[in-house]
């Protein structure tokens, strides 16, 4: 069984970027397709699929595709037939990258565990409280205490 290969083409849509899959050489653009579709399986250089009873497992690198803004290439990790990671290798612009990540990744939005650091700083921006929330909770507290 050959592995699933995703050849993704990135083109602008009115409200962001739609990701569609294409078989090699055939790029299509469907503005009504916000979700990626499975491409016709074909082997990709460097891919080493591991067939399992529940689906393919492995890392697949798509061919670089010419998109409206430039070149797009992605690498997809599949585990037991489910996509567990999508990593853009090339994206035409920072804005496209951000929109791509937001549009396609959904639950796989790339995030980073934040580390706390001690740094020399002049000022701190933080949500010590919020205007409305603080106001509401304080008002409630005052009412309960019959002071407000």
């Amino acid at each position, binding site marked *: 069984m050959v592995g699933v290969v995703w050849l993704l083409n990135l083109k602008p849509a009115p409200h*962001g970027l739609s990701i569609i899959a294409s078989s090699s050489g055939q790029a299509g653009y469907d503005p009504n397709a916000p979700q990626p579709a499975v491409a016709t399986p074909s082997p990709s250089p460097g891919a080493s699929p591991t067939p399992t009873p529940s689906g393919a497992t492995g890392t697949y690198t798509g061919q670089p595709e010419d998109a409206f803004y430039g070149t797009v290439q992605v690498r997809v990790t599949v585990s037991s037939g489910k996509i567990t990671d999508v990593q853009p290798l090339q994206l035409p612009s*920072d*804005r496209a*990258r*951000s*929109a791509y990540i*937001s549009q396609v990744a959904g639950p796989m*939005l*790339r*995030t*980073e*565990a*934040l*580390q*706390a*650091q*001690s*740094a*020399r*700083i*002049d*000022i*701190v*921006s*933080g*949500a*010590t*409280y*919020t*205007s*409305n*929330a*603080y*106001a*509401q*909770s*304080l*008002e409630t507290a005052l009412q309960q205490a019959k002071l*407000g």
Partner: protein
Amino acid sequence: MPVTVQVLDSTADDSMLDEVFEEFARLDQTFSPFLDGSAVSRINRGELSVEEAGPLVVQAAELCRLYEVATGGYFSAWPGGRFEPSGLVKGWAIDRSASILARHACDDWFVDAGGDVLAHGHNGDGGPWRVGIRHPVERNRVVRVVLASDLAVATSGTYEKGEHILDPHTGKPATELVSFTVAGPDILSADVYATACFAMGSRGLDFLDGVEGYEGLAVDRELRGAWTAGFAALCEGA
């Protein structure tokens, strides 16, 4: 609400800072929901209409309407029908302070009101102002340092139990994130967008993507950060 103003210009004097604090006091007297005699309290008791409250209140209401439209209703100064412009007034006060300092030809200063910051020029070391984004849990540490020379940085959120930012569409607390930081050229917009984006959750990053010149960092309940494409370039270590 704690307000900190620092002006490094040698030409600065106390009277300029007094003007800034008087501006905050004036806006507080007009807009504070905790003062029985404020215009906002009187409006909410039905004693006064927005128009009757004068041009300052009318302008605030108009700005609130504009931002309500711009944020698709995720910023709203009329939750449940009450007039609550506090989310706009904080950034607006900072903005008006900036005008005062600019009028006095000050170059190197910052204004910090309740964690919303507008920084102009350079700090004491001659570099950009170093604005730390507070870590949600380790309160004396930061997750990023934004380098601000002519930049507004506003953070909305709640780290404490019992405090909520409500999603105006559902009336329920927005619980996906613990904080949302917005950086951009204008403190009024940064402040409002931070509040609205917090209510949107991680989709706030999509919203900011569509707003030229504004970048954001969303922190979720597992303390994972996600950000718009241009946010990293604003930070130390970029």
